[in-house]
């Protein structure tokens, strides 16, 4: 039995997306949310490169993947700055305590 490369890559993409969404749904820690987002976006990025390769327009897929990498990094940076400031001002990173907005 031979497994084609696109099948394996689609498996990685679906796995990463699933793990990311599951972690987003269950985690309570603000920094862990950023980790989950990173995993989610890595899946999307791999999907873009694979889609470019499979439709023959590899360069378009790669160009979009670069944009996604930069956007993802900026999201992580701003999320971590937010987490540090939230921790400093409110004193916790627990999403449940944050939603109740008590100090």
């Amino acid at each position, binding site marked *: 039995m031979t497994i084609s490369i696109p099948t394996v890559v689609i498996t990685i993409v679906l796995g990463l997306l699933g793990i990311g969404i599951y972690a987003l749904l269950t*985690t309570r820690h603000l920094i862990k949310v950023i980790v989950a987002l990173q995993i989610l976006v890595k899946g999307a990025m791999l999907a873009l490169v694979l889609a470019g*390769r499979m439709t023959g327009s590899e360069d378009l897929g790669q160009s979009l993947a670069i944009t996604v*990498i930069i956007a993802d990094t900026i999201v992580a940076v701003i999320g971590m700055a937010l987490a540090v400031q939230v921790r400093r001002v409110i004193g916790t990173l627990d999403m449940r305590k944050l939603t109740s907005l008590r100090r």
Partner: protein
Amino acid sequence: MVHVLIAIVTLVCAIQAVRAARLLVSAIWLAGTSALVALEMYLLGAPEIAVIELSVGAGLVTILFVFAINMTGEENFDPRRMMPRPLAASLLMVAGILLLYFILPEIDLSTPGLMPGTFREIFWQDRNLDTFLQLLMIFSGVLGVMGLLEEEKMKKPLSGKERRP
């Protein structure tokens, strides 16, 4: 065979990054996931993206994570979750089944590419709006890093207020 091995290790790294109790360990597993995704991209024929992903995703983001975790410190959490695990898993299953049922049959891979041209032409000419937006995002990222380092300015007025009474 190499692809299957990379797939297994990538998914294991991602699961460990989500499951790890300590944040620092979680960040290191995330770096591993990133490096393996970069390797897979290289094998798919996108070496430029692989290099950028390796240096930014596995390098810069990990350093930022370690920095942020050091600044916030490890916090002890009670083990209750945001949402019960079975509920989250079943929601995920439903989403996956809907995706497979509705979208997968519609995918038509026989259509040719939308934009011909080399990587350089597409990146700098056809999609120059994207490039401009990336510059804007990098600028906002710089502002974000300044927010991350905003420690001194915030402490000074607070200590001033504490001294007054």
